[in-house]
């Protein structure tokens, strides 16, 4: 079969696993998705975000600011498909599928054979880590697409002395930085390392051409000056950085310059403690259980889970990493080392111990290791190779079905609540019935185990009730007829009010059962109670 047909089949599989049931799984739109969706809609409709800001470079949300690229992409998809779940998730699913081609091209450019590059592309197509984040509005996935295409174009530019490819790669690297926070650490370090590796080729590309230097510098400045402005002169970048900073970690007890004695100053210095803390987080990502057993967090810790990659591939990675270490191609060894070292770095500088989204920058290394492992295996002269391939394919099939069960069944069963399942139904009921009541109350507090979580219901009402952005702004960012707070039963029950609230906020024994409806999670537990007057 020729390359085009094989890549076409792989792309079709990638599309299939990313688009089937896209609006239903994951079971709810997260607050970020709803916010991105509505802001994208507002941009498409009015050219301004939900706060009335014209074409912003950082989108204000309730607690921080969002990078702009994914919102502008969603504005395009809402312009085509209209405001809805599909439009919000479409850019991720499409770019996630297209990553298959980008990864194939990158592997070929690094120096792999066509066969191995196709295997690498197939790995991306069905990789659980990549599939999971392709199916919801996660900016990190879009940024990863830009990074992979950027690496491919960079390598192409230095090998073919193509200045246009270099400019395009700069644009894509810059776009990735404008798409997700982790890339603000990862991409500059990656570009510096790649530029050092290919310094001779780069110098020859720029030699005796001030014009080329000026164009490349101009493109970089075009993207970086606004970013520096946002970083140092506005709260747009620092708010997020402070919210996720590792300095907020209670497990990092710093002296803040106040040492009791010299031995503490020498042996327990803050600089040492910070370095050790970062290193500890960095090493957390070298955890096989995180990578192959439970990294996706589809189930609670005490249950079997799903790793970032299929467990059956563990031996392929082991062979791949070992082979990379002794690989004859210096170019490949160094690129792999760069991707290996830098991949978990952004995530290591933040609060969480392990974070599958922030470490998505590590995915290209694993794809590379898989390709090398596959290359090694294919070149081995061993008996029963076909039998081994058959066993591998069967186990991979079992792993894929297991992932399917985890994703479509266990994940909604355990974690629908964390995906704010129920707010969609609440918003739809509220919108459908608001004409019958003076007010519709939707609680901002929920959680089956108690009032543990806070939602932002107005975002769901804006999104699902298709409230016009101009109308929302004209009403001073309120939605007439809706209130969003916990109910006060004694007062609210006397009003002509539709109440949608968590069960513990209502005296259910006192309320006439005919007036009560329930919104349930997929596991049968009550998410919200709907009480009509």
């Amino acid at each position, binding site marked *: 079969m020729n390359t085009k047909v094989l890549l076409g089949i792989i792309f079709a599989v990638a599309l299939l696993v990313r688009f089937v049931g896209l609006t239903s799984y994951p079971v709810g739109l997260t607050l970020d998705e709803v916010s991105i969706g509505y802001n994208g809609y507002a941009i498409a409709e009015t050219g301004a975000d939900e706060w009335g800001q014209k074409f912003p470079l950082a989108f204000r949300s309730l607690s921080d600011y969002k990078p702009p690229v994914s919102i502008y992409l969603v504005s395009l998809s809402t312009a085509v498909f209209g405001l809805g779940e599909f439009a919000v998730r479409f850019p991720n699913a499409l770019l996630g599928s297209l990553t298959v081609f980008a990864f194939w091209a990158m592997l070929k450019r690094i120096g792999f054979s066509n066969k191995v590059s196709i295997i690498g592309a197939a790995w991306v197509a069905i990789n659980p880590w990549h599939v999971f984040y392709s199916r919801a509005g996660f900016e990190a996935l879009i940024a990863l697409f830009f990074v992979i295409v950027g690496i491919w174009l960079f390598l192409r530019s230095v090998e073919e002395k193509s200045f246009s490819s270099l400019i395009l790669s700069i644009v894509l690297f810059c776009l990735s930085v404008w798409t997700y926070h982790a890339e603000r650490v990862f991409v500059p370090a990656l570009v510096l390392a790649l530029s050092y590796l290919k310094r001779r080729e780069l110098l020859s590309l720029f030699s005796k051409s001030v014009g080329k230097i000026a164009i490349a510098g101009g493109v970089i400045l075009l993207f970086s000056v606004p970013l520096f402005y946002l970083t140092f002169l506005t709260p747009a970048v620092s708010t997020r950085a402070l919210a996720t900073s590792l300095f907020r970690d209670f497990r990092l007890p710093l002296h803040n310059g106040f040492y009791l004695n010299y031995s503490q100053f020498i*042996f327990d210095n803050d600089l040492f403690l910070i370095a050790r803390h970062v290193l500890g987080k960095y090493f957390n990502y070298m*955890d096989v259980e995180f990578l192959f057993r439970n990294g996706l967090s589809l189930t609670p810790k005490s249950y079997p889970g799903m790793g970032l990659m299929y467990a059956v591939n563990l031996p392929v990675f082991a062979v791949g990493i070992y082979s990379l270490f002794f690989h004859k191609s210096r170019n490949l060894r160094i690129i792999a080392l760069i991707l290996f070292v830098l991949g978990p770095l952004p995530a290591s500088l933040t609060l969480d111990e392990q974070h599958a989204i922030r470490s998505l920058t590590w995915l290209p290394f694993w794809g590379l290791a898989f390709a090398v492992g596959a290359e090694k295996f294919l070149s081995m002269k061993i008996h029963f190779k076909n039998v081994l391939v058959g066993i591998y394919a069967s186990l991979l099939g079992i792993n894929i079905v297991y992932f399917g069960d985890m994703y479509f*069944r266990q994940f909604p069963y355990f974690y629908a609540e964390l995906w704010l399942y129920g707010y969609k139904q609440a918003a739809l009921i509220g919108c459908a019935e608001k004409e019958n009541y003076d007010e519709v109350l939707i609680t901002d507090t929920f959680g089956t185990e108690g009032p543990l979580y806070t939602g932002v219901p107005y975002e769901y009402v804006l999104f699902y009730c298709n409230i016009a952005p101009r109308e929302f702004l004209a009403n001073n960012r309120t939605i007439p007829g809706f209130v969003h707070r916990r109910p006060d039963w004694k007062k609210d029950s006397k009003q002509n009010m539709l109440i949608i609230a968590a069960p513990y906020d209502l005296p259910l024994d006192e309320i006439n059962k005919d007036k009560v409806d329930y919104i349930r999670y997929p596991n049968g537990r009550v998410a919200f109670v709907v009480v009509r007057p």
Partner: protein
Amino acid sequence: MNSRHRKYVFVVIVLSSPVIWTLISHFPELVYEWVNAFNNLSDKLNFLFSSSSVAPIHSMRLAQTYTSGPVFILSKFFYNRVLLYVGEFFTFQSLFSPRIYFLAGDGTPFSPNIVEPVSVLMFPFWVYGLFTSIKDKRYRVLGSYVLSVFIVYLVGRRQFSFLLLVLIFQLYFVYKGVMMSISLKSARLYLGLSVVYGLFILGRLIFL
């Protein structure tokens, strides 16, 4: 380098590892843990074969009852004792993780949190030593390494009273990595730095 010098290198690597000193200073507790090893082993075996250990896995079948969506006939096939043993395999392999030996420790007095059991700067030597041992097909060493991890897994205690067995191999791989790279000037400088750092973390152990 002659064999006597090689021995010195190994001794320096061992002595600059704080966990050696913490183990010596907690020798009575160490013996106590060893004496109880058979009880731990029996607990572990009971866990592996008891019905309660698969209860959380069986409970995952409940998701089939409640959730709608694509039905996988094979899903029952997953949630049984086999999955428990897959999980146990991951617990077993986690004992190979360099994180315990070069950074985190076990959090017990045998390896307190304030210092790493073995200087983290030795880690690159460990990687090099391990990969070289595989390349050189040192199956006896590698087999013993796996066996030592399996013994610790069976005892079911993730602490250095037992991990000591594995630690010997980890230090051997560090030594092997050092020996393979010592002809390089940069590696010798790095080794010197690692030893100084080893002394620094010993200082942390003593003074903090």
